[in-house]
């Protein structure tokens, strides 16, 4: 079911203490706006991530997805609006890009150890889960883009996070690996009751596991549950990942259109 209006417009505190589940809110942003050089990138965004829930952000390039995530992480400041984290919240973050400095010799395992203290057993378990155990002693500068994504996810997971924030986690990962990666994220979310906020363009792969999809194009265009049809694992089996992509469904009937700069041409808000 799609809800075609902005999220609540209540003040943040009220929002965090929503009557149904006061303690379960991990992260809430409300009324976030951000301009870059006079261009409105984010316009009054409100969003909430609860324990064990997977929220997927979709939207065209330049829609402000990464900016929103960075603001939610407090890596960037919004022009207006509020960001609230549950106190002591442990976040595992997977950035969109990782620049590996070629003059810095560092192995995969050393890179992971920069983050947190964990046991060797934990490390090996996480690495095998992501199929990268064999990369352990490789130089970080020598692994491929898809392998790097898994290494970054490993670093986020080793923190035993309460909230995972993933910026295009499957970028550069091969097709078979993508499905596996999203399954793993969903499994971990269920197992550890971990909230997930992720940006993804692979809706055909994430929809079965996503609790809520938020379509962003400078403002929240619409949000709601992805269609139930893809819940059936047989769906992916039957068509294979390639066809599934072609058949990907997230019925997305907008009630308004955008011009080339993303401004709303015709708005019919309720």
């Amino acid at each position, binding site marked *: 079911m799609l809800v075609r209006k902005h999220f609540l417009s209540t003040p943040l505190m009220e929002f965090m203490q929503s009557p149904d589940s006061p303690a379960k809110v991990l992260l809430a942003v409300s009324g976030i706006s951000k301009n870059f050089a006079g261009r409105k990138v984010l316009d009054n965004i409100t969003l909430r991530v609860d324990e064990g829930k997977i929220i997927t952000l979709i939207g065209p390039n330049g829609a402000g997805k990464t900016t929103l995530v960075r603001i939610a992480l407090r890596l960037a400041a919004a022009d207006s609006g509020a960001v609230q984290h549950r106190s002591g919240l442990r976040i595992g973050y997977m950035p969109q890009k990782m620049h590996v400095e070629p*003059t810095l010799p560092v192995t995969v395992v050393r890179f992971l150890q920069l983050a947190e203290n964990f046991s060797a057993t934990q490390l090996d378990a996480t690495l095998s889960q992501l199929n990268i155990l064999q990369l352990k002693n490789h130089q970080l500068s020598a692994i491929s883009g898809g392998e790097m994504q898994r290494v970054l996810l490993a670093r986020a997971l080793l923190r035993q996070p309460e909230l995972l924030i993933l910026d295009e986690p499957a970028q550069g990962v091969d097709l078979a690996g993508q499905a596996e990666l999203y399954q793993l994220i969903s499994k971990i979310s269920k197992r550890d009751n971990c909230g997930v906020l992720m940006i993804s363009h692979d809706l055909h792969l994430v929809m079965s596991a996503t609790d809520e999809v938020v379509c962003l194009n400078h403002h929240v265009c619409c949000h709601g549950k992805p269609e139930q049809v893809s819940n059936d694992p047989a769906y992916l089996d039957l068509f294979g990942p390639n066809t599934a992509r072609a058949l990907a469904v997230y019925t997305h009937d907008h009630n308004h259109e955008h011009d080339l700069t993303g401004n709303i041409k015709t708005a019919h808000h309720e």
Partner: protein
Amino acid sequence: MNNTFLQLLMSDFVLYALVAGLSLALIAGPLGSFIVWRRMSYFGDTLAHSSLLGVALGIVGDINPQLSIIISCLVFAAILTMLDRKPSISTDTLLGILAHSTLALGIVLLALTDSVRINLEAYLFGSLLTINQLDLVWILAVVALASTVLYFYWNKLLSVTVHAELAKIEGVNVERLNLMLVMLIALTIAVSMKVVGVLLIISLLIIPPAAARRLAQTPEQMAFKASLIGAASIVLGLFAAFYLDTPAGPSIVVVATAIFLGLNFSRV
């Protein structure tokens, strides 16, 4: 032949020069590795250039020159760090402007005081062999401080260097650590100025880590081997200076560069 060198070694000024050079090489290994990893070499250069302004201000204000260099280096390091946070103009352009304008301002100011004619060659190359006890104490104190800080914050500094945003989310105080590293670099440059000169300290910070890169599998190996290469350059450079009667500072730089070239163009 070795006998005369050994005899010379025993003399105070050569011993002081050697101890000062070796301890600077020791700390320049890890500090310089951070400079290379973070692509900050121009930053160090700018600090070193601006220190001449510190010399000038010290003379104008009648402050102890060592102290005025240290204070001005720390102030410039803080200013550069703050400017870097608001990038309205690209960092290398900003550093280029500051490096040369502070150098020029320092020279103009010195000319106006007309009390001292500063020897620009001494500023560039220092005077390693005229080092006195107080100079040595300053150097040893800063090296001790920098080693202690690097030892205790090594992992965090490394984490910030590899990915500052991940480090921040993992609870590391990125701004504080950056400032700390920059201050250590500024202090090291400041106490090295008089003794080894701008050219030598920047070379010691950058050339040995660059030379050590191909020999290292871990950051620690790179830092350690950079220290060794720096120390070897000091000893061999002083040795060459003695036998070829060449200036000490430039001889050390030439040796370090030769090691860098040798390691990078051979199949190790």
